[in-house]
């Protein structure tokens, strides 16, 4: 059956109702797309079909006849670098799916728009913070701060005054 895969025309012989996920991983040798649940809940298997993100664990191979399929291996984007830079990838298993779902976002999306577009991608490591930061920008999602704890506090009552001795917090840089 003919289709376009990551920009190249392919002709793959596979049973029509096999999952697109399995055809990609096994028949085409592209293991970047992952299986996290097999029930369309985690989004780790997200690929683009004609530019639209779909769960490849729920797509029959027959349905990509004549269509364009894009996997993480074929993603042309600087988002992977941004994701790494902002701590948006930890164990990495959800990352390809996240990036493919993010491909549907326009330029400079808001944090809210990013969260909506990624509502179908579960991440258990990052709390989504680094992911949203990478995709919406550090202004939308401030980076964590690091500061010195200051001298040991011994007093009983919590102080409501900002203590100059404790030093300014610096944001996590880069």
């Amino acid at each position, binding site marked *: 059956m003919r289709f376009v895969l990551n920009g190249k025309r392919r002709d793959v012989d596979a049973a029509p109702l096999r999952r697109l996920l399995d055809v990609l991983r096994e028949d085409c040798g592209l*293991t*970047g797309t*992952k*299986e*996290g*649940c*097999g*029930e369309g*809940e*985690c989004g*780790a298997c997200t690929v683009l079909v004609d530019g639209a993100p779909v769960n490849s664990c729920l797509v029959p191979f027959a349905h990509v006849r004549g269509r364009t399929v894009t*996997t*993480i291996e074929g993603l042309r984007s600087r988002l*992977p*670098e941004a*994701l*790494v*830079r902002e*701590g948006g990838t*930890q*164990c*990495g*298993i*959800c*990352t*390809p799916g996240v*990036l493919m779902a993010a491909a549907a976002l326009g330029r400079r999306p808001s944090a809210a728009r990013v*969260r*909506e577009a990624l*509502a*179908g991608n*579960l*991440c*258990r*490591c*990052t*709390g*989504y*913070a680094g*992911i949203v930061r990478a995709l919406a920008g550090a202004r939308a*999602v*401030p*980076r*964590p701060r*690091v*500061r*010195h*704890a*200051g001298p*040991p*506090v*011994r*007093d009983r*009552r*919590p102080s*409501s005054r900002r203590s100059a001795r404790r030093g300014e*917090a610096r944001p*996590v*840089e*880069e």
Partner: protein
Amino acid sequence: MRGATTLSLAHADGVKTVARHAIGLRYPTPVRVVGRSVPRKEGLAKARGRARYVDDLRFPGMLHGRTIRTAIPSGELLGVRFDFDTAGFTVVDHRDVPGRNVVALIQDDQPFLVEREIRHAEEPVLLLAHEDRDALRAASVHLDCRSSEPVLDPERSPRAFKEIAIEKGDLARGFAEAGVVVEGEYRTGRQEHVYIEPQGVIAVPGAGSVTVYGSLQCPYYVHKALVALLGLPPEQVRVVQTETGGGFGGKEEYPSIVAGHAALLALKSGRPVKLVYDRLEDMAATTKRHPSIVRHRTGVAGDGRITAMEIDVLLDGGAYCTLSPVVLSRACLHATGPYRCENVRVRGRVVMTNTPPSGAFRGFGAPQTVFAAEVQMDRVAETLGLDPAALRAGNALRPGDTMATGQRLGEDASALAVLHEALERSDFHRKRRAWTGTGRGIGLSLFFHGAGFTGSGEVTLASRATLELTPRGARVLVGSTEMGQGTRTTLAQIVAETLSCPLERIEVAEPDTARVPDSGPTVASRTCMVVGGLLKACAEEMKGRLGGLSPSAYLRRHGPLTVTKQYEPPPGIAWDDATYRGDAYGTYGWGCDVAEVELDPVTYEVRPTRVTAVAEIGRAVNPLLAAGQVEGGTAQGLGWALLEEVVLREGRMANAQLTNYMVPTTLDTPPIDVTILESPYRQGPFGAKGVGEMPMSGPGPAVANAVRHLGLDVRSLPITPEVVLECASSSTESEETSTRPR
């Protein structure tokens, strides 16, 4: 100018040290990477889909494996019937075990495969392997069983795996001093890890040997279990960790079982066997967080000083012991919360029920008891009419204070520092006043987490780390694993800076038991602190021996150089396991969370709108990665607080699908404002303590206390809308609360 200068350029790609090798330049030039947010080493490979997890691997002639499991929670296996043609299948049962049919861990009570006694649903009985996955799935096996009455209620269990008692001072005197006594019972449920990559291994047989590749946290745990199961000499068993898609403790001890099963199939068939669980099996059969029932009885003086703490801890260990004694230990050692009290008694039990065994999960007992302690604190505050922050500040542990085990805290005890920071950062008091009665709530939790193994644990582990000189720099050889928390990168940073070698020239070897030493398990928030500390010592020695030569020059002149260091406890640490007295942990991390929620009056949903998380972790070797642990752990804690519930029916997980076991999506997770405080721990590399687990303890009680601020008395997790409705509907007077003015 002669005598070159070193340029240190901070790039988005990390720190590059450009040393101009001009004549007269001394080697090495300083490298400053500790405390920088350098990108994780394998980050781009993961983001481009090039990282290889176990299911991405294939071996020639490989078979697929499948586990046949019990459906009943308790009883006897009488017989097995195959309703399919077994030709072409490899079949393994307990009789095929060459060594001991026992998962070597603590009590050695759990079999790899059922022999006769069935102790929980989803217990493995039989293994199948076949080339064709469809044929494998279609194979129908009938288990003939006789049921017996299961024990499903931990409060009715006839057997405890472990009991612990911690006593300090004189409880009776403490209660006599109290003006008010507050009692309460708090419950938390099972939690499933939901690492997005399910459990999986590939076992490859050799002549009288086996190699297992897998998704796991502790290659040496697996190694030990395989040696016992297979009856092979240790050097004939090899375990290699593949890139692992999340662990959270769920891949601490459980992979030994997957590995053992795959190895049995591989050795019997003579072919590589891939055994990967699908999500349903993974959720139904693998370990969960121990459910808890914790009872508090607290005596408080009129000025808010806690005079007595009496605490009972009951954990449900499931069918087999696994790591329950250690979970109970940590639970009991954190049961008082981060507070000072002269008179304490903590009694803990972890008991058997006929449910799939409970196991390690981020926090490892502490989140359960910290939940109870922190909700109890808010109830005490409520009873006394005190500000919950002030009550905590008045009782918080300070440097020099003595804990329940008699441990004296060092200068890096930061309970008050994190509390102050969180209150200020979140504008807690103003919101607390302004939001009363508006449908918005704000609550706080103060918590702590002992870094490393309890008591003499680290000494027993006797962890080792090795550093090997390479022509370009050095190679780290440790059994510690990367599972997303940043091990590979942070350990490399510690070595790079100590050795004065650019970060990109420090390699971290794949954790392969044939190559790396046993650095202890990657658990207990110990890796950066303990193993990083060993590597720092290795690097210091290596640097000394290099004597100013470059690595390649040294190798040319002197040949190979390898340095290995073994754990030595810091001076002055003493622990008595028999009496449970002494220094339970070398040091502690400190945390404070403030949770802001809003209650939907139509649906009773509690929506978290913001969490302020403050963590004092000694030193952030890599601030971005450390913050990632706080962000991720806080989100996972929110899931435990509000959404995640394992529903058991007749001892079996009824909601073992991601459709029905709810983990937070992007829309369920609020902004998490993270502040990391640094108060260097002298015994940690560059001052680092542990960070990975502590964030799990904060959200549960912070959310419960925010819900209390809304006027709802909830004392259990998860706080689902159904629970909120029931709470709002029932009377406000609870049977357990008794406040007796004296």
